[in-house]
């Protein structure tokens, strides 16, 4: 924890004589957030702040591991060994992101097993974008370019999130996501400049992934449930619509360089606003996919549950072995 915040929290504890004096704690917390200091695991924090972070970090962690599935779908069919190596490394990175994020959640007092149970039972969500299928090789590129690209736009501001462990995890994650974004772009560029079939494959993928990518920023500001409080807590720094606009403005020139079209007839530069205008998002689709009615909701969660259930005997064996051999040296524990 930053020293000033520590000092204030300590003062608050002294003032309360050890009993919880929420007023003083709240005051110290608010002051630390206002001063752009990081809240650390051992600092006092409001219950609702903790709950919001747990929900958001868990959902983010779940998205990383569910997000492995649509791309892993192409590892065994990658059309060159170089692309295969890049894709395997990417999917591995996503598993690593899951690990950092579950660890960040653990600092708030919830274990990975508990969170995985909530994912498997459907009581916690993951990003809806992964409920769309990867139908061709070009989808791997479209995911890298658009989905990792949208994730970066969302996550760069999270590097300054008020909660220290989450902010630090985001710094590492964003570095890797920007590799993924560039690799996806480069994959699409190769297809776009390739044969007519390859070009068509790339265009088709962008046609299918564009709108769902815009939905990744969440509902419009006037319908967003958690936004205002998260902004006040400096968990969130920009509104959903601001980030979405930023993403569109980034993508338009990139699509041009790719030689691909974004599937939106209303997309055009607005001189007055200094931004691109774009067409209306189909929020019915968004809510339907969120509710579980997307093309792959059932498939993704079933695969996740199956991997977990089929791996139970392995985890049990590791635990039994560790218990039998605790205290020995030379045998590493799982």
């Amino acid at each position, binding site marked *: 924890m930053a020293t000033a915040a520590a000092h204030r929290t300590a003062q608050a504890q002294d003032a309360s004589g050890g009993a919880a004096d929420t007023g003083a704690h709240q005051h110290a917390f608010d002051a630390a957030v206002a001063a752009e200091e990081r809240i650390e695991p051992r600092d006092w924090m409001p219950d609702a702040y903790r709950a919001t972070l747990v929900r958001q970090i868990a959902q983010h962690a779940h998205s990383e*591991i569910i997000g*492995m*599935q649509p791309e*892993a779908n192409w*590892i*065994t*069919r*990658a*059309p*060159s*060994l*170089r*692309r*295969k*190596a890049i894709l*395997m*490394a990417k*999917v*591995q990175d996503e*598993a*690593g992101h*899951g*690990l950092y994020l*579950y660890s960040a959640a653990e600092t708030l007092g919830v274990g*990975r097993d508990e969170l995985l149970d909530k994912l498997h039972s459907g009581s916690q969500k993951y990003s809806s974008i992964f409920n769309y299928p990867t139908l061709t*090789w070009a989808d791997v590129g479209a995911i890298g370019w658009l989905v990792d690209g949208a994730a970066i736009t969302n996550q760069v501001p999270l590097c300054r999130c008020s909660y220290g462990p989450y902010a630090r995890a985001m710094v590492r994650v964003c570095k890797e996501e920007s590799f993924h974004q560039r690799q996806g772009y480069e*994959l699409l560029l*190769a*297809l776009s400049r*390739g*044969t007519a*079939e*390859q070009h068509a494959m790339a265009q088709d993928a962008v046609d299918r992934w564009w709108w769902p990518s815009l939905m990744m920023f969440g509902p419009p500001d006037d319908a967003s449930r958690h936004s205002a409080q998260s902004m006040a807590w400096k968990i969130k720094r920009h509104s959903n619509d601001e980030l979405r606009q930023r993403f569109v403005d980034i993508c338009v020139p990139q699509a041009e360089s790719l030689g691909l079209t974004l599937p939106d007839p209303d997309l055009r530069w607005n001189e007055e606003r200094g931004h691109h205008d774009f067409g209306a998002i189909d929020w019915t689709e968004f809510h339907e996919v969120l509710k579980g009615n997307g093309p792959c909701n059932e498939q993704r969660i079933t*695969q996740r549950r*199956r*991997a977990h259930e*089929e*791996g*139970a*005997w*392995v*985890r*049990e*064996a*590791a*635990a*039994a*072995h*560790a218990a*039998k*051999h605790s205290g020995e040296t030379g*045998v*590493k524990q*799982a």
Partner: protein
Amino acid sequence: MTTTVTATAALALGDDALVLSHRLGEWAGHAPVLEEEVALANIALDLLGQARVLLSTAGDEDELAYLREERAFTNLQLVEQPNGDFAHTIARQLYFSTYQHLLYARLAVTDGEFAPLAAKAVKEVAYHRDHAEQWTLRLGDGTGLSHERMQRACDALWRFTGEMFLPVEGLAVDGEQLRSAWLESVSGVLRRATLTVPEGPQSGAWTAGAGRQGLHTEPFGRMLAEMQHLHRSHPGASW
């Protein structure tokens, strides 16, 4: 493609690495625990890196990987065996990485063409072997169920291990010496894991040297069909 002695050996070792990497890649999204998603991908990536260097010694890596027919692949039958449950994957890893480690340690100190590659790869493979050993110990000496599964996996794959010690043209390694070092190492791990060293023959009576001579097992054709399909569907395209 050249067919020098070196190319023959590079293809044999390169195909081993390519095929095992592919099999390990099939685990992505299915591993029993998140740490193993990372570990199995790590091993797969190391092997793919080795495969690319070795295949490039023999020709164009993508032509060799994607355009050869099944009978032209000279990998060991062991590495093409399906993943099965996690115990089968670990048994396959233990058998192969022990072999690869012994082989590369020997090649690294010769002055042959493979010395530079082997010197680098032997460090990677040491980790693969350690990973397999630790899991063999956990599964063998874990629960009753894991013991049973690990024993079954070790027994099932034993018949594919004899092929590793047959001479490969271009590799100056003593096969019998390799076999006894391998046996000692693997037996030691299995015993510490409270497992029984399998007693059956180390190769099927009808398939001496099979994989190295381009004779494979049924699942391999399906694996290649999946791996090669997209590349073959777009002749001449670059990716």
